[in-house]
């Protein structure tokens, strides 16, 4: 029990950069929500129930244009499909004997950032760590949305601009340290960033939406790496003492 509390507190602490980044991004989401005609209450409900940035931004466009509910469902499926891939990776980090309700709770918080930090834990993942991250991240996301709707200019543009790199900084903090000791990981990260750049700027392939770009590149690059550099079982097995 004590162990769970320690993990929860650690999650809240590690979630502070997520909080800051979400606050900034959700703030601009709130402004967009207001322009789309949503009330502060509606925008807040949307953020607390969805907890996803690209999906919510896209939804605002659909709501404004009066799209059908089916169009809304398909758009969300396409944009958020990457979470499916993340949940596949995350499910292996959880103890298979963990009571099922933990998995339902962890699922709520599968965002790019919470996933990224959760998988960086060594060994098995204690769900309470993810709960800590999710708690503080949800507050940032929801509060940011609300503030964006009610007061479009409470945060100066300069601060918003600086806070926008918080989330990327966190991703970097997650992927760089293991790559220091593992040359394959370092190479993979370089290849991933290079191909991602090509897909962003080259004609034709740049038409692929960011959501699909992430899925395609991840499946292809991680897939090739799995064939070329299968990891020995003692690493893959992952020591479970951390849980």
């Amino acid at each position, binding site marked *: 029990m004590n162990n769970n509390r320690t993990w929860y507190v650690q999650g809240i602490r590690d979630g502070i950069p997520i909080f800051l980044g979400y606050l900034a991004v959700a703030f601009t989401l709130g402004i967009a929500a207001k322009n789309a005609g949503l009330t502060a209450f509606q925008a807040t409900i949307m953020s607390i129930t969805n907890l996803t940035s690209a999906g919510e931004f896209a939804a605002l466009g659909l709501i404004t244009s009066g799209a059908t509910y089916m169009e809304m469902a398909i758009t969300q*499926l396409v944009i958020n499909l990457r979470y499916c891939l993340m949940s596949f990776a995350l499910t292996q980090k959880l103890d298979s004997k963990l009571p099922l309700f933990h998995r339902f709770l962890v699922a709520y918080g599968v965002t790019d950032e919470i996933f990224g930090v959760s998988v960086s834990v060594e060994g098995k993942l204690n769900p309470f760590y993810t709960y800590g991250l999710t708690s503080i991240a949800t507050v940032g996301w929801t509060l940011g949305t609300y503030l964006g709707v009610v007061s479009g200019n409470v945060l100066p543009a300069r601060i918003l*601009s600086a806070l926008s*790199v918080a*989330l990327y900084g966190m991703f*970097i903090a997650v*992927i760089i340290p293991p790559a220091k000791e593992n040359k394959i990981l370092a190479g993979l990260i370089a290849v991933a960033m290079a191909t991602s750049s090509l897909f962003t700027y080259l004609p034709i392939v740049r038409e692929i939406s960011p959501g699909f770009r992430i899925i395609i590149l991840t499946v292809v690059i*991680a897939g090739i790496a799995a064939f070329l550099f299968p990891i020995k079982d003692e690493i893959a097995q992952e020591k479970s003492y951390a849980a």
Partner: protein
Amino acid sequence: MQHNVYLYILVMAVVTYLIRVLPLTLLRKQISNTTIRSFLYYVPYVTLAVMTFPAILSATASTWSALIGFVVAVVLAYRGAGLFKVSVGACLMVFVLELFV
């Protein structure tokens, strides 16, 4: 036809939650296949790298401040700084740089 905002939100929330919860609940056993295990081990690194670059370059007011923020984050992470330090370090760098642009 007039659509209801709350119904839109409900549709969004249900679809998004299902995407997240299905793999976590349906696939509970440890996979023993080495290739799949290796694939899942590599997934987070590739995903996060793809999401970070070059997207970070368009996150701030100028490409240059973002690029330098990126370099600062990589250097800090390489030298062993934790999540918070790397993240806040990159933010501060961008903030200070943009004071001069």
